[in-house]
């Protein structure tokens, strides 16, 4: 037996084993995870991890997820870290629980500890039943004790469940139309609400024509106002929705700074005050001769999360306790933020995750929950459901910030960069409410909180600078980062954060440099990569696609390759795309090779890769629209139609 090892960080911060695993019903294991299902299949993977370590059948496991009363606090389900951190913590907790039962059986019944094993929850001695199992011994084995780190998980080669595809546990409810989403919750006495949002942050109500708004409504409504937080509440959702649609005609606002369309353009960032830093090697001192110089600039507008449905939250305040149901990615940080907003003790608040439409990052989910909570405390005993309007989601959710990325390099005699700079201008990519602010309701209520401090993750993983440093072997490389702390468009996290444009810019440069050097883009990259896992995904995708550099000129078709290791510290992926450029650009085929390390559920990983490729294709190909654009409903339609199925690329999985 080896000595104690360092506990996985999330087990160290949530050490009580009974928080993770309990045998409170015969034949069933309650397993808790702080991670939440946002369409990525994480609950299925967690169940596999727990079943593997506890040696029980998958269907014995009842998962509890994202509940501030019942699950570990794992912060946010974000950053592609659920398995890496949450899964590893759960695995260790389950391994310790299994061993505690075996230790107990050996000590109590005189078995040799080494002769004992678990099979589907039953304890075997040399393969024979002992008559004991987890449930019969549950009363004698106290799991309300801290994890110790003195035992480890099973050897990977012993795995029977992890690494094999398992069907999604959440899919059946969805294909049978069960009310699995927070939008579908129907509590007794539920009232529906819509928020009449401040048109711009900081705007104040000058006048409100309550009587006019009531007359315009098609049925009874209540108007709830605190400070500049204004809502329409009623029993009939159709009446409330229709009233909200015309409410803007009955409110006048002060402090509505109109948004200048230029402020939504990426290049606007170049003229703004910024917090500047250099990450990496010091800048070169000698000037670069023009013939040895490469430079290119890429820009990107703001990108909406464009969830297929707007956000929703449900809350009820009863006997001094607040219950909130939300599709937020972080129930614990949201609870802290709600406690501050409402001046409640966090222990008086229970926040539970219920699934929502795919969010892909920090969309309006937290705000909708805060809206519901802010209303619930105004009407004790009444469950309140706030479903954002479609316009609200596009107009007020935090967008992924616009960015400008310039890559520049000094090219040596072999045609390779000897010195490299990625210069990045960007608003804030990480702006979640846990750090103390950025809830729209909190800003609209009286005495709004001070703006939270501007923070920026260092590299790696980085936020706006994520993947800004190429993995390629350049003698000197650096990121020059200009963080624009204040932008008129509200921004926060979307899948990949800055990596999306940073990788696009770096890989675009690699293609141009390969062409300039007269080399094949695959060979050019491989010559600059020593990491065998990086090389392997590129070689693999080249083989899968039957790589040939380009296609004959004039065919209107071409192929390109891209490579990255996410955050320069997680999964490796290489992608080949075949593109047709005629009146419009169409992605015809995509090949992808990915090395994500130990994969819990291979089909789940493939599903995520397919989805990521299609979503990123929609970001790249579809036009943006500004919130200043005319004909907003039409623009909304275009935006949410950004990934129509008939225009989907073909793929080898198909």
């Amino acid at each position: 037996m080896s000595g104690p090892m360092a506990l996985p960080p999330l087990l160290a911060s949530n050490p009580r084993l009974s928080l993770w695993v309990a045998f409170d019903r015969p034949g069933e294991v309650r397993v808790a995870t702080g991670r939440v299902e946002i369409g990525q299949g994480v609950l299925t993977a967690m169940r596999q991890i727990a079943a593997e370590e506890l040696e029980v059948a998958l269907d014995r496991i009842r998962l509890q997820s994202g509940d501030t009363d019942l699950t570990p606090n794992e912060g946010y389900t974000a950053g592609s870290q659920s398995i890496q951190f949450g899964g590893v913590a759960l695995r260790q907790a389950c391994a310790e629980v299994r061993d505690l039962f075996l230790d107990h059986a050996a000590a109590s019944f005189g078995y040799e500890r080494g002769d004992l094993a678990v099979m589907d929850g039953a304890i075997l001695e040399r393969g024979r039943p002992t008559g004991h199992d987890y449930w019969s011994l549950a009363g004698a084995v106290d799991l309300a004790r801290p994890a110790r780190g003195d035992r480890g998980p099973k050897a990977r080669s012993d795995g029977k469940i992890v690494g094999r595809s398992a069907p999604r546990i959440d899919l059946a409810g969805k294909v049978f139309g069960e009310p699995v989403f927070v939008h579908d919750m129907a509590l007794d006495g539920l009232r529906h609400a819509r928020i009449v949002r401040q048109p711009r942050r900081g705007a104040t109500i000058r006048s409100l024509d309550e009587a006019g708004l009531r007359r315009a409504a098609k049925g009874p409504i209540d108007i709830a106002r605190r400070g500049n937080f204004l809502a329409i509440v009623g029993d009939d959702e159709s009446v409330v929705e229709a009233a909200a649609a015309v409410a803007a005609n009955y409110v006048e606002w002060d402090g509505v700074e109109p948004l200048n369309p230029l402020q939504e353009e990426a290049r606007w960032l170049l003229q703004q005050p910024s917090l500047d830093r250099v990450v990496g090697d010091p800048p070169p001192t000698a000037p670069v001769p023009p013939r040895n110089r490469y430079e290119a600039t890429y820009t990107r507008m703001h990108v909406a999360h464009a969830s297929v449905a707007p956000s929703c939250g449900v809350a009820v305040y009863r006997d001094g306790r607040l219950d909130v149901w939300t599709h937020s990615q972080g129930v614990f940080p949201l609870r802290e933020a709600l406690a501050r907003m409402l001046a409640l003790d966090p222990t008086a608040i229970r926040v539970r995750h219920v699934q929502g439409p795919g969010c892909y990052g920090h969309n309006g989910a937290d705000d909708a929950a805060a809206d519901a909570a802010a209303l619930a405390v105004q009407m004790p005993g009444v469950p309140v459901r706030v479903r954002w309007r479609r316009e609200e989601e596009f107009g007020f959710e935090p967008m992924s910030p616009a960015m400008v990325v310039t890559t520049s390099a000094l090219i040596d005699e072999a045609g390779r960069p000897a010195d490299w700079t990625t210069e990045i201008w960007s608003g804030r990519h990480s702006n979640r409410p846990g750090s103390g602010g950025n809830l729209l309701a909190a800003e609209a209520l009286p005495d709004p909180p001070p703006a939270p401090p501007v923070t920026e993750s260092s590299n790696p993983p980085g936020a706006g600078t994520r993947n800004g440093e190429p993995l390629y072997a350049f003698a000197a490389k650096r990121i020059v980062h200009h963080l624009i702390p204040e932008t008129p468009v509200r921004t926060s996290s979307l899948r990949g954060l800055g990596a999306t444009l940073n990788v696009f810019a770096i890989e675009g440069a690699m293609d141009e440099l390969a062409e300039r050097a007269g080399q094949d883009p695959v060979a050019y990259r491989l010559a600059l990569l020593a990491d065998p896992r990086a090389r392997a995904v590129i070689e693999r995708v080249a083989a899968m696609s039957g790589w040939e550099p380009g296609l004959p000129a004039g065919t209107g078709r071409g192929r390109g390759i891209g490579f990255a290791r996410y955050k320069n510290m997680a999964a490796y992926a290489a992608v080949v795309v075949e593109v047709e450029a005629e009146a419009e650009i169409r992605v015809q085929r995509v090949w992808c090779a990915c090395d994500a390390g130990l994969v819990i559920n291979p089909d789940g990983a493939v599903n995520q890769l397919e989805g990521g490729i299609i979503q990123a294709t929609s970001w790249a190909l579809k036009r943006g629209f500004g919130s200043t654009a005319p004909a907003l409903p039409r623009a909304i339609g275009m935006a949410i139609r950004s990934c129509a199925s008939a225009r989907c690329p073909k793929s080898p999985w198909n």
Partner: protein
Amino acid sequence: METVNFSVNGREVTVDADGDTPLLDILRNRLGLRGAKFGCGLEQCGCCMVLVDGRPEKSCGKALATVRGRQVLTIEGLGTVDHPHPLQQAFLDEQAGQCGYCLPGILISAKALLDRNPDPTRRQIAEALDENICRCGSHHRILRAVALAARRMRDQGQAA
């Protein structure tokens, strides 16, 4: 306020409501059928798709009064866990979905397609689903699932 009679999933219902109330609201809030979803409210995303007399219709923009005397089918009427429709079984077999919010509407659109064309090509399936948005990018699996269901139904000589 008016009284509207129609049928939902083979059951006759009577609803007293404004005739211009969206059918989606009636299904979800009055009849407790929350399988059809609100996505955009603009007839742009297909999350609220139902069949009205066999034709796919977006219920968010469909006034209650327009379904008077007609037959509405929602996802709840397609199949059950114990008796899944071949489409539902195929979506499970192909693991066709991520967040799943779009799936009820997509299954309804697919049902309408297979009712009129039991042997669709991939392109025909894609075109039939063009009114449905999936933002997670489960398209390939969904296309495969619809084709699988069609094949199984043809093999079994089953009507959709």
